[in-house]
């Protein structure tokens, strides 16, 4: 059992929780994630790790369906029955040169450890942080600690530049030499980023958020068409080459259980 030691509301329905898990915290490397079972009859869901130390891990999540809403109701002192990890392939320790990091929505939580990681490997990092509105802009300051520049966009223009992340990205690609783009956020955003960089032939990594069950390479739920083959996101990813990903199939697969998800959520909210 994994005890919650701290719980902070970052934005409406977006939580940061710190959980006692010394073995996971000690083994964590940027790019890794964990699989969480919120309760005994729950499902296994993948969540990214925002921070880790020798005692604990910090997870950021947005309440979207039943499992994340359930987690959002847990308080300091409550225990999560199962957290498995860290799993996934760690991000390489390399100096790529100039990296543009694109974080969308709650994906900003994954962008922070990756920014820190890229920075510590000597990369020049420009961050583009996208959110629906001002209230949902996450980790601007934290990203600023490790990035040479942070550009914020909001869909409604309530903070930073109005519009989507691909507009400033396109400008950067036209103006500067960029060695790599790394995008983390909703699949539609990552697809748009990959399409934006493609004509510039800039290496583009995306942190895929496929549906997962085991997280250990056993089941193939997270498989994705990748170039001329199929790979398992939990084993080969989560960071994969955005120009090789079969986005249409991935986007369809993400909606595979939308009816069941809606049913589960409405039953949970009725119980409350």
């Amino acid at each position: 059992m994994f005890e919650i030691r701290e719980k902070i509301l970052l934005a409406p329905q977006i939580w940061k929780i710190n959980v006692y898990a010394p073995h996971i915290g000690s083994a964590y490397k940027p790019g890794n994630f964990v699989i969480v079972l919120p309760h005994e009859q729950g499902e296994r869901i993948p969540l990214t790790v925002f921070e880790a130390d020798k005692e604990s891990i910090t997870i950021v999540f947005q309440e979207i369906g039943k499992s994340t809403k359930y987690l959002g109701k847990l308080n300091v002192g409550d225990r999560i029955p199962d957290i498995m990890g860290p799993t996934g392939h760690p991000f390489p320790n390399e100096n790529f040169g100039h990296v543009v990091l694109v974080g969308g929505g709650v994906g900003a939580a994954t962008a922070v450890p990756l920014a820190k990681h890229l920075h510590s490997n000597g990369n020049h990092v420009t961050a583009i942080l996208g959110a629906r509105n001002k209230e949902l802009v996450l980790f601007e300051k934290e990203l600023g600690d490790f990035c040479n520049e942070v550009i914020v966009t909001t869909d409604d223009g309530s903070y930073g530049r109005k519009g989507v992340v691909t507009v400033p990205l396109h400008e950067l690609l036209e103006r500067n030499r960029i060695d790599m783009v790394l995008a983390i956020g909703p699949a539609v955003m990552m697809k748009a980023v990959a399409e934006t960089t493609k004509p510039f032939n800039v290496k583009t990594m995306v942190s895929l958020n496929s549906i997962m069950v085991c997280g250990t390479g056993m089941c193939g739920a997270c498989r994705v068409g990748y170039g001329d083959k199929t790979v398992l996101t939990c084993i080969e990813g989560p960071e994969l080459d955005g120009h090789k990903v079969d986005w249409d199939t991935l986007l369809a697969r993400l909606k595979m259980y939308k009816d069941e998800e809606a049913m589960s959520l409405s039953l949970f909210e009725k119980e409350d």
Partner: protein
Amino acid sequence: MALKDRVPMQEQNPEIRITNFDEVALGYTEEEALIEASRCLQCPNPTCINGCPVNIDIKTFIGLLQKEKFTEGYYKIKEKNNFPAMTGRVCPQESQCEASCVLAKTGKPIAIGRLERFLADREMYKPQSQAVAKANHIPIACVGTGPSSLAAAADMAKKGYEVHLFEALHLPGGVLSYGIPEFRLPKKIVNHEIMLLTDLGVFLHTDVIVGKTYTLDQLLHEFRSVFLGTGAGAPVLLNIPGENLNGIYTANEFLIRVNLMRAYRFPEFDTPIKKGKNVVVVGAGNVAMDSARTARRLGANVTIVYRRSRTEMPARAEEIHHAEEEGIEMKLLTNPLAFNGKNGWVESVEVISMELGAPDERGRRRPVPIKGSNYIIPCDEVITAIGTTPNPILKYSVPNLEVTEHGNIVVDDHCQTNIPNVFAGGDIVTGAATVIEALGAGKKASLFMDKAINGEIIS
């Protein structure tokens, strides 16, 4: 005066059982078990024992059963096999112990598996009295909690070692928990037999991926020896067009959702599963039968597609029979070529008819496509069950561990890998095999681990 025929075992009626996940085979009553046991000739030189991969003293346990010494019979089995309630249910006895029974020459062999199951079901919930050597406080680790690791752990614990079991998933049991369905192996049986193991003093650590959470080096730092029983759990994909469409599951995912995550009880349990109306299962091994019969219980019309003929089907005859009784259709000599879809969802599978050609290197006649025989099978769900391979996590994280080109760990005659103090056994060494063979491998490895620790073998 031996009875020629074995005592049949009661089963749930096919029409009823396809509406539930309860066990199909109901087990012997005491009276039935005594009649069946009375058929055993108590041969002076029993041949059945050699047919058992862990050499249970079958003659003696059936002899005890004949005298109604049920508890003694149970412990006679447990001397060699810690998990009789599971093996009595899932072993392919017809090709193991029962194939070696002398009665098989003239009639039906003794139903050894059913008698093993009868004793286990009768005794295992009673307080256990298992002989355990004095604790030696030497810590050893078993990685994985499938049959091979469980067997190694049980034997090492009985020898007095401090055993730690490591499992990546949140529940132990490996294929016993996530793979074999409830209607063949009830999970309460699996849980109970594993609980009896923790009663021996074995420590269980779930949610730990060795290679990620702890490295093998870290384990070797804390444990005198490490046994790797990580199985062959990674799915083999067909690599044909359309394989990533919605509605197409690997058997592993389908069975993990249903067995481990209890998706058949959604929304009471949170993990969802798609319930297809017309399901195609690709493959004809036990995993294919389990998948097909599970899909049937979720309400589907199920068709099995297999590229060879009935004689080559790798599944147990009993499972094929059960599947047919449950109304599952078999399209033999048929091979899938592509999956077609609409709006991202599978709609049909294009197949081609096959004929058997010349034998391959293993002596099985090779299936050859018949030109122009392509046709379409409409479906809204597909389950692929064409085999599994070793998981690459260990190989990635321990690059100096010697593995074959297929990813199987290489071991010597003493179950030792090329890394000192690291042993391996079960499917990770042999490729996918049976539960009892994995149990046997774990037992064998524990024997050599013990000898190596005592300096009787130099690694």
